[in-house]
């Protein structure tokens, strides 16, 4: 418990406090008037308005597109379903930068649609919305579809036997049970899109800017740290509110539902209507999820003899001091370090949270752990920049800064993955070990660890994927001669010229492949030998 608290105090609370001080303190006194000053600016109000409505629109669009998908995955059985489920999840672990690049390749200047029909969406909000749907499709399918597949269809049948039509049975029996899951998924999507950075940064151009992008712009282009700090606070409050509502819906979702094994509820589609629905969902997945990635790969190969890939190995481009290919090594090193930190901190935190005698303080820490997830990577990066650059703790020159920031973003994933599994371990099993002479540490090693090993691996995988794709925080603190993959992609995209564009596509493809492989390994771990425990 001490280590996670210290970690969060040092690398989250302190940087955030530093931001607050930087934004609201001038000449040693608090200037709360600055908040209203900043919020009164019309361009800032425009940013706030855009951030909110694009998040709402993205959420609505994602639900509209993904709910039929959730239904199909929950209730229909068809060949290739397992593979397709993994494919659908790939976008979620893809770095935002890759998503942005892929959509640029699809709907941007010189993109596929531009070539075919002369259509360009990268100057419209549609590119952002579509990318958000792409990114969050899996959130809805997994959260809602997961529960839907485990709901006993006999409940609906019971309602039918009592005289309800099939539509009424669905509306009165299934929908109410499903509603909290839909709400939770919607809130997650809203949160992710509200704090969207990489996608908007790449696809939004100068016209569209979310809070997150604006914070970055104020910091690194305008150097107005005061405004950036105030905006960070606004975002902090908004995210806190969303997380609170989310926690509330999750608690409500824990009402007692009769769950059954998902394999027993799925069956082959019957009749033209059901086949059409399945076809529609498959087509949506093909166009919305697969096509952008395919175009991305195709663009990266659009030079003779893997020209773009080979260009990555030379430093001649002048964008970096080193060949872009070195970013791969950097990224992997950082990700491994970040994963180790995240698993250590997250594992300790989860273990502390599982203790039955956990007091109010510890349970409060549970909610606190989720904050970095929502409080946006840019806040973390910005906070690191202004808090950890002077004695007593000057880590600016240290390579550990980047993994620390990435671990901060990864810890909530670790805790979320570990906690349900740890809570499922029977407390008396631990007591049995204690009575047989095992110290608390050995109890954890002998009882908890073997039972949660797989969850731990999955958590590590998530942390790894998150670190690998982390952009918002890293872009602040990565040093120019040690860029990570996403940072290198963004910087290449910022330059004109076909070669840079092609290299960005090539690097994105590499990043996508690494993340997809990590995910597929995780999927195998998840389904392998499930009967063991």
């Amino acid at each position: 418990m001490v280590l996670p608290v210290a970690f969060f105090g040092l690398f989250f609370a302190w940087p955030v406090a530093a931001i607050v001080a930087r934004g609201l303190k001038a000449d040693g006194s608090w200037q709360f008037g600055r908040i209203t000053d900043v919020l009164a600016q019309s361009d800032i109000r425009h940013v706030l308005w855009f951030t909110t409505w694009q998040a709402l629109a993205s959420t609505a669009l994602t639900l509209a597109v993904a709910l039929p998908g959730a239904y199909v995955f929950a209730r229909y059985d068809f060949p290739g379903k397992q593979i397709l489920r993994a494919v659908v999840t790939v976008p979620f672990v893809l770095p935002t930068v890759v998503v942005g690049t892929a959509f640029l390749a699809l709907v941007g200047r010189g993109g596929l649609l531009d070539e075919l029909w002369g259509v360009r969406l990268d100057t419209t909000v549609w590119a952002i919305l579509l990318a958000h749907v792409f990114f969050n499709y899996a959130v809805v399918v997994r959260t809602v579809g997961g529960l839907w597949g485990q709901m006993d269809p006999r409940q609906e049948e019971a309602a039918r036997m009592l005289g309800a039509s099939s539509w009424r049975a669905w509306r009165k029996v299934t929908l109410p049970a499903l509603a909290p899951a839909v709400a939770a998924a919607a809130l997650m999507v809203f949160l992710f899109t509200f704090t969207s950075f990489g996608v908007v940064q790449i696809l939004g151009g100068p016209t569209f800017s979310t809070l997150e992008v604006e914070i970055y712009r104020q910091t690194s282009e305008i150097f107005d740290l005061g405004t950036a700090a105030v905006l960070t606070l606004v975002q902090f409050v908004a995210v806190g509110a969303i997380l609170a509502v989310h926690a509330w819906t999750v608690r409500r979702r824990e009402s007692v539902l009769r769950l059954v094994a998902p394999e027993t509820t799925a069956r082959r589609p019957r009749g033209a209507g059901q086949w059409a629905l399945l076809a529609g969902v498959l087509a949506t997945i093909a166009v919305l999820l697969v096509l952008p990635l395919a175009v991305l790969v195709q663009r990266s190969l659009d030079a003779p003899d893997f020209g773009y890939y080979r260009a990555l190995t030379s430093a001649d481009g002048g964008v970096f001091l080193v060949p872009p290919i070195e970013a791969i090594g950097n990224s992997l090193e950082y990700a491994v370090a970040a994963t180790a930190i995240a698993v250590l901190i997250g594992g300790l935190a989860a273990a502390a949270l599982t203790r039955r005698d956990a007091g109010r303080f510890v349970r409060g820490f549970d909610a606190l752990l989720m904050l970095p997830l929502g409080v946006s990577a840019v806040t973390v990066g910005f906070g690191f920049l202004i808090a950890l650059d002077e004695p007593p703790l000057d880590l600016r020159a240290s390579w550990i800064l980047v993994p620390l920031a990435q671990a901060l973003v990864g810890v909530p994933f670790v805790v979320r993955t570990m906690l349900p599994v740890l809570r499922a371990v029977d407390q008396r099993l631990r007591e049995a070990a204690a009575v047989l002479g095992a110290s608390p540490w050995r109890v954890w090693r002998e009882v908890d660890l073997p039972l949660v090993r797989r969850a731990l691996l999955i958590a590590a995988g998530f942390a790894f994927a998150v670190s690998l794709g982390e952009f918002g925080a890293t872009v602040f603190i990565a040093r120019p001669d040690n860029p990570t993959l996403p940072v290198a992609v963004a910087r290449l995209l910022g330059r004109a010229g076909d070669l840079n564009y092609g290299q960005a596509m090539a690097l994105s493809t590499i990043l996508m492949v690494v993340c997809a492989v990590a995910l597929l390994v995780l999927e195998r771990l998840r389904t392998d030998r499930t009967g063991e425990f």
Partner: protein
Amino acid sequence: MLLALEDATVRFGGRAALDGVDLSVAEHEIVCVLGPSGSGKSTLLRVVAGLQHLDGGRVLLDGRDQAGVAAHKRGVGLMFQDHQLFPQRDVGGNVAFGLRMHGVSKGEQSERVGELLDLVGLPGAAGRAVAGLSGGEQQRVALARALAPRPRLLMLDEPLGQLDRSLRERLVVELRELFGRLGTTVLAVTHDQGEAFALADRVVVMRDGRIAQSGTPLEVWQRPADEFVARFLGFENVVEGTVAGEAADTPWGKVPVPEGASQGVRSLLVRPAGVRLVDAGLRCSVVARTFKGTHVAVRLRPEGDAPVLEAACALRAAPEVGDTVGVEFDAAEIVVLG
């Protein structure tokens, strides 16, 4: 005394799960705590094991106060109600667990595991997965696991609770024989009086976190301390009466009591065997008869508004439902309670 509880108190919220309990267990003694669910008997074990914090009083092992001594350092064994075998380890891994925790060498471990598995009647089962064991086998493995580190005190929480009746009756005899042979000191809790009487040297009856009675099985059976204990042991013929000399005035009329019984208003227990069916005496109609194997239990409704009586009759002499019979009482089967 190996184990002594002094004024042990545990409160959950406002309710006392243990309310000033004093209890001691001597070396090699088998003590069985008997009580209905919620009487605090499992809490008692958890307190001794160090899994439950005391709100008042002390736990002493070998005369040493255990306050601040963690569960894993107390050197006591606890067999859980539903066994709690480690699912990811095989039978041998489970039994060896405590030995490993105590730093016993590998060779010694496997030797002792084999020995214990022989002892509990599962020879050669070390390599089996625990998921594939039957309830009785799991129980034996749990016992072997608890015995392995040679705890100075072995505690059993409803040791046979989840097993079927015939297995239970066989195992309780085996356990008693085994503990006698090993000289193990045992503190067990159960809600089943048959189990307690068969297993224990001494029975402790608990009610609402307090000790209602303590004594040998025979003492408790023959002289229940109060109406609660009598009814918990399954006796139904408990009634209030005024004792004067060697007779008591009860709703069932004059009832003889043993010599030297305490005088005044008392609860009286009439054992079913003490209810004799005769031609004269208290007039009763037979409302039910239940075949019990060795005898027939007969429920009798006396004339007037006196409480229903239970009688035990020989198989051949049992009346039919609806018959009217007369009842006399046998002073030897009557106990004046508390």
